[in-house]
């Protein structure tokens, strides 16, 4: 077991992984992968950290999604004509018209083959990236300042396709929940929530802690734990009992 680092973070200071994310985005790194367990605030960081004058656009990838979500699609108008509805990828390229925006892609590994190919084109280096607008036939390129933050729950980065990894030189593992997410629960549970976030197959999500925290105020610890954690309630309460040295009431 590694020795605990001598300098402890002050209560609201950023944990190491989050500080790295902040530093990377503030320094202008424009292609970042945030990977690690779910529910730690990776998307939140993508949408809020760094230079965001050009706005931030989110794209949640699924099997069923199409290129319409990325580049755009034709949409009928009230007058009976068709207009082009720009997708999140192109919106992020164009930003506010002066500087490029931020594209936050969640779970890119879940995107289908054609969407994945389009996303590769969208996230390519600015010199290679170009897209022709179907309506205006104008070649569109990402504006300066365009950045991409990709999030995934994949723990092993070797599982990602090489082409994608090649576009994202910086990959940061997020193993702690964001401190602001922890502030939403009672103080006595924050440390447990933080530790259980990275507990492998025995991980407990922040959402479970929120639910337990809310329930225990009216139902008491034991019943709340049984409702939220089911058969795991005993070991959960015993662990708190051991850690605090007091019976959980």
């Amino acid at each position, binding site marked *: *077991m*590694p*020795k*605990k*680092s001598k300098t402890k973070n002050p209560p609201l200071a950023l944990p190491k992984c989050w500080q790295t994310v902040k530093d990377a985005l503030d320094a202008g790194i424009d292609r970042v992968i945030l990977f690690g367990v779910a529910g730690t605030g990776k998307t939140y960081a993508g949408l809020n950290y760094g230079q965001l004058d050009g706005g931030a656009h989110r794209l949640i990838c699924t099997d069923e999604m199409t290129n319409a979500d990325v580049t755009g699609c034709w949409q009928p108008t009230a007058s009976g004509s068709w207009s082009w509805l720009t997708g999140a990828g192109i919106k992020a390229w164009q930003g506010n018209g002066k500087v490029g925006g931020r594209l936050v892609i969640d779970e890119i590994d879940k995107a289908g083959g054609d969407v994945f190919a389009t996303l590769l084109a969208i996230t390519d280096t600015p010199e290679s990236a170009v897209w022709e607008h179907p309506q205006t036939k104008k070649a569109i390129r990402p504006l300066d300042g365009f950045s991409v933050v990709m999030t995934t729950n994949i723990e092993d980065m070797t599982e990602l396709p090489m082409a994608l990894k090649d576009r994202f030189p910086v990959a940061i593992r997020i193993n702690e929940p964001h401190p602001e997410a922890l502030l939403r629960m009672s103080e006595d549970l924050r*440390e*447990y929530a933080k*530790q*259980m976030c*990275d*507990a*492998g197959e*025995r991980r407990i999500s922040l959402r479970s802690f929120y639910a337990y925290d809310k329930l225990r105020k009216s139902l008491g610890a034991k019943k709340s734990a049984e409702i939220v954690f089911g*058969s*795991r309630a*005993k*070991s*959960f309460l*015993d*662990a*708190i*009992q*051991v*850690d*605090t*040295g*007091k*019976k959980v009431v």
Partner: protein
Amino acid sequence: MMPKPTEETSSGYQVVGVTTPTQVVPDAEMLRRDDTDAGKWTIHSSSAQTGEPKTEITDRQMFVPTYDDEHSRHIRAQQMFHAKVSPSHKDMDKWVKRAWASERTLLACEKLRITTLMSQAGFEPHLHLQDGSEFRNGFQVSLHNDFQSAVLMSVALGETAGHTEFLRGVEQTHPEWKELLTKITQQGVSFYKSIETHNDERMNKGLPSLAKLNDTGEDIRANGFAYTEQLAKWVETIIGSIQQPPPKPDNPNPDGKKDRKGKKGKKGEDKSEGEGEGDPKAVKRLLKEISDAGKTLREHHQERRGGLPQYGKEAVWGTLRVGKPPLLRNVIGAIGKKRVATEMGRNPRRISRLLTDPQRRIFDRVVKGAGGVVLVDTSGSMSLSEDEVKQLVLHAPSALVAQYSGGSRTLPNLYVIANKGKMCERLPHPHGMNEVDLPALRWAVKNKQRPTSPVIWVSDGYVTGKHDDGGEELAMEVIKFCQKNGVYVVPEPEQAIELLKKLQRREKITSIIPEYLSVVYREETGRTLVLR
């Protein structure tokens, strides 16, 4: 008919039938420590038998029964507490190297700390912690008359359901041990419990609290294991002071309870029995002494932050530097080898005795002196004059005489001032401090001419370590060393000379125990100090 297929659970168990037992896996990831970061644990399913459940903190591995019953739950809690507060193997080595107590005793006292913490946290080890081997273990140690192991096992099982069974096993062969073991274990439990009470008192007074029993700070004063070390040291002192408990009475009653009840009703008989071996009074007295010693242990914790030395046992003493000034002066007297006349031999060196000695002892025989080492404490508290030291040398027959006194960083702190019939011209000037009492004693024992040669330590017992820091801990170390190695102790030079004279006359000699050592020993053990 085809046999029913077996189902394999996630833990790898094969369960016959359709039902699968509920598996409860401890959430060790939730535990927080000050000295290590949290992380993933690997939990292995094991049986509940002693030795099977274990926790390896360094690799974050835990072996526990995963059944959903109170017994398994308590074993899991026990291992969880180990994961929470016990030192890792690597850190344990550091504690062992401090050498204030042996690893075996540390482990026994650590088990008691864990059980105490379990009770304080609301678990019920006194009802559920037991594996069925306790009775047999108790019977075995008492059968082999192994009191030391009995104490350690009793301490390790303290406050658990298995303790009663263990004592029942001990009782089969040594019923008189039961009360002693119970008393020692009780003192250990009281000590651990007193830490929380004392901390509460300090908080109420607005004083900063000391380390809690479950603290895991990197500094030893902020680590609860320091209390384990403290108790282990105390347990070893108590075992050493008792050595062998009073034997069982001549007519032991096989039923211990009835026997004790019988004694209560026969006070008059007790008085007439005296206080010899096998006397119930001796056991009673011993129990009181253990109680007193336990009280001192708790008081020391309150008065001196546990009296816990910052450094290991070796590091508290100064480094011994031996100086050997030239021994040019012959000592007139009986130092060294001596020739005496005898009637048998090879070379008739005393031919005149043919006429003068009725037994015609014309040959020579070499008689060696008894040897021995005289170690003189020349620190300031002794206030020895040069003449007094010289007198000691002159009265030390065939002995190696050394004086020691710390206080200089470069010069020797122990000088050999006489050996093999010769002594130095001028005695070295002492530096004034002690600092090296125990290393000097070790040197003296190591330099005995023969295993039977006596070692005489002339000292008032006010021993100190590095930077002349004193304390009961150091005094106890010196006492234990003297007891173990049969060192004779005398506080005054005149008494030492008297003892040396007796030695010359081949009379029986005994130590005259310095008052300070006597007081310290009584405080620490509740018993009277006995030295050779």
